[in-house]
């Protein structure tokens, strides 16, 4: 896809979100406004109608077969609108099944994910694996992003010494889903408790090289999260720049104070650089030797910058930025969750260092 095509795609994402999820609605939704909660359902329907969950799924399985670069544009838009669309884990579930699932699993799940009738949630890499050597499984899994809205869970699990994932449907007997609120009101998580849940053989995804598969997922997640965080930071920065041009104190527009200007200039520079880095890592070939290194390195860096910019934006807004009615906190919370998902800075940086030494 050319840059111009990607730009068109970005426009189409932004158009829908502008219409269905203006920032006032995001604020209302965060404060539990029932009207906003019902419009959210409309947003979820539109998202499915437009095929966003199908974006990266192969065409043969009912998807649109678009690239990671296209995916990055989607997450930029979702982050920019702080949209409560449970997308990340669905994207990752599709990547997992597409990469390591059996042909039967692909045929079964991918079209359902693409059509939006299956929404998935997948274990974070830091979570311990469940164990099950027989036909029934018990245990519990925490930190499942988008879990409250999911009807399919892909849980890190071990079977007879082999590591992989097990697919558990939310509706299966013995499955209890306990929703968990997150600090970020635009997303949520869940804990899943399994009590003697029947697990068929074909529920298992047990690739011969689970480490490689996990890295493949990590690479997807890193790019999606970096994009999401960057989208939030760009929105936050644009809104604070506007504010600084009108708010007056000491008889002057506060944007004329150099102490503030310089911070904005640094933030702007950091985000311009982040855009360049994101575009590069999102466009790298699957086979590229440095693909994982660059993706996780970019995630650690961009999420850090985004968290920092969105943090400073609250400070720059002053008291109004501390109110729940103002969107500034939504951007910060979004960026902080993106930073924490799929390993925080320290874990990622250790991995970056390993890969640098190995490369």
């Amino acid at each position, binding site marked *: 896809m050319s840059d111009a095509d990607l730009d068109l795609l970005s426009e189409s994402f932004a158009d829908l979100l502008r219409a269905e999820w203006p920032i006032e609605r995001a604020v209302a939704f965060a404060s539990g406004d029932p009207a906003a909660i019902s419009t959210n359902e409309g947003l979820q329907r539109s998202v499915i109608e437009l095929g966003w969950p199908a974006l990266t799924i192969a065409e043969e399985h009912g998807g649109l077969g678009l690239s990671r670069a296209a995916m990055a544009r989607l997450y930029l838009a979702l982050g920019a609108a702080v949209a409560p669309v449970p997308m990340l884990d669905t994207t990752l579930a599709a990547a997992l099944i597409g990469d390591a699932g059996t042909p039967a699993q692909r045929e079964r799940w991918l079209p359902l994910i693409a059509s939006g009738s299956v929404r998935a949630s997948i274990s974070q890499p830091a979570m311990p694996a469940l164990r099950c050597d027989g036909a029934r499984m018990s245990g519990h899994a925490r930190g499942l992003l988008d879990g409250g809205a999911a009807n399919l869970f892909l849980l890190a699990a071990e079977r007879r010494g082999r590591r992989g994932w097990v697919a558990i449907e939310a509706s299966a007997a013995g499955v209890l889903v306990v929703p968990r609120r997150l600090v970020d009101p635009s997303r949520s998580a869940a804990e899943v408790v399994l009590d003697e849940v029947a697990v068929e053989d074909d529920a298992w995804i047990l690739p011969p090289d689970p480490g490689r598969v996990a890295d493949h997922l990590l690479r997807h997640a890193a790019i999606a999260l970096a994009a999401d965080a960057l989208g939030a930071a760009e929105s936050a920065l644009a809104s604070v*720049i506007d504010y600084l*041009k009108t708010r007056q104190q000491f008889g002057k527009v506060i944007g004329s104070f150099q102490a503030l200007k310089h911070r904005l*200039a*640094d933030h702007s520079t950091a985000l311009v*650089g982040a855009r360049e*880095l994101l575009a590069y890592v999102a466009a790298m070939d699957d086979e590229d030797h440095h693909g994982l290194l660059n993706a996780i390195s970019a995630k650690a860096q961009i999420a850090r910058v985004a968290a920092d910019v969105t943090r400073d934006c609250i400070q720059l807004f002053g008291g109004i930025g501390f109110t729940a009615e103002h969107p500034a906190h939504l951007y910060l919370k979004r960026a902080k969750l993106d930073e924490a998902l799929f390993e925080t800075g320290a874990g990622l940086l250790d991995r970056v*260092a390993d890969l*640098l030494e190995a490369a």
Partner: protein
Amino acid sequence: MANPGSRLLTGLTDDDAFRRGVQAWLANALPTDWRTRLQGATEEDVNRFQLWWLEERRKVGLATPHWPREWGGPGLPFSRQIIAYEEMARADAPELELMLISLFHLPATLFDAGTQEQRDLYLSGVRDGNDVWCQGFSEPGAGSDLASIRTTAARDADHYVVNGQKTWSSYAMYADYCLLLVRTDPHAARKHDGLSLFILDMRSPGVTVRPIRQITGEGEFAEIFLDDVIIPASNRIGAENRGWAIAQSTLSSERGLLLLSYAERVWQGYRKLSQVTRPSWLSDVGLRREFASFHAELLTVRLMIGRLLSMTEESEEGRLATLPVYIKLYWAPLLQRYTEFLVRAGGLVDQEWQPPVACTGHSSGVPALDFLKSFSWTISGGSNEIMRNIVAERFLGLPRA
């Protein structure tokens, strides 16, 4: 040699063949021990060495790889200019620091604003000769506020008489010529409108140069005293009182290929640390993480430079105005933080003084000196603070104070 043209790499018309040609030439022409020989060498030896290397480059047509044919350069397509600088940096070929202004700032200045005679005369002195140029913009009273220059040039028949003082002029003590920015109209309503740019022959009577020692111990820049110096009117670049705009193009010339070369060297050094040198501090978890965190930023700055170069080629006007400033403001503080980190990581070992290694950009391998040298990017050519003012006021539209 019967046909000296046969050694020219610039005749290779395919990018891959050109890259291989440059690599092979470098492997052959570059002495492996040049760093050792140059460490702590006298300034004269360092200069001699640079002129020798310029001559080696000239033999294969790469004295001025980025000059278009109109400047008398090889007229390489952009992709091959990038390859030339990339490969020279990767092979750790010497950076021609003495020729910095000659190779980059001079042509950028003369190309748009110079006369044909000026271009023919002065560009050939770099292309075919060893002319060293310096830049005389800053003064004791005119640094960031460059437009407040007080050195004057008074018109007298077919020449100007120049009086005043310049400072911080890199390599002025070795320079043959100087790009001199002076005031020609003391009464201009806007102080920017009273400036003109000249070519000063450094051998002119009345020119005195006093070298200034830098924090790195090297004597890289100098003061220039100008006492009734005569400059022929034909040495004025561009129209009278139009010097300010021309000077801006002089200054922006360092944010493209020159920076590519510097950034590529730092990148090479970074990769080498984790893969070859493996300093003992890499076994400290905290320092190792901090080291790893620079990967994304160093990669980013290379990507930004690459974007700028490809845009220059496609002349995408819009971002061409903003990206060079963003690059400078990304690169300068990053370079400083990174080199500071290396000094801190090295601990007491790197507090022991070691002689500098010239011609290595910011990758001399002496961390303390690389760190100290990083201020040349954060202060000169528009300080970090001035860059931030530009971003905030011109790009983000915030009001002036």
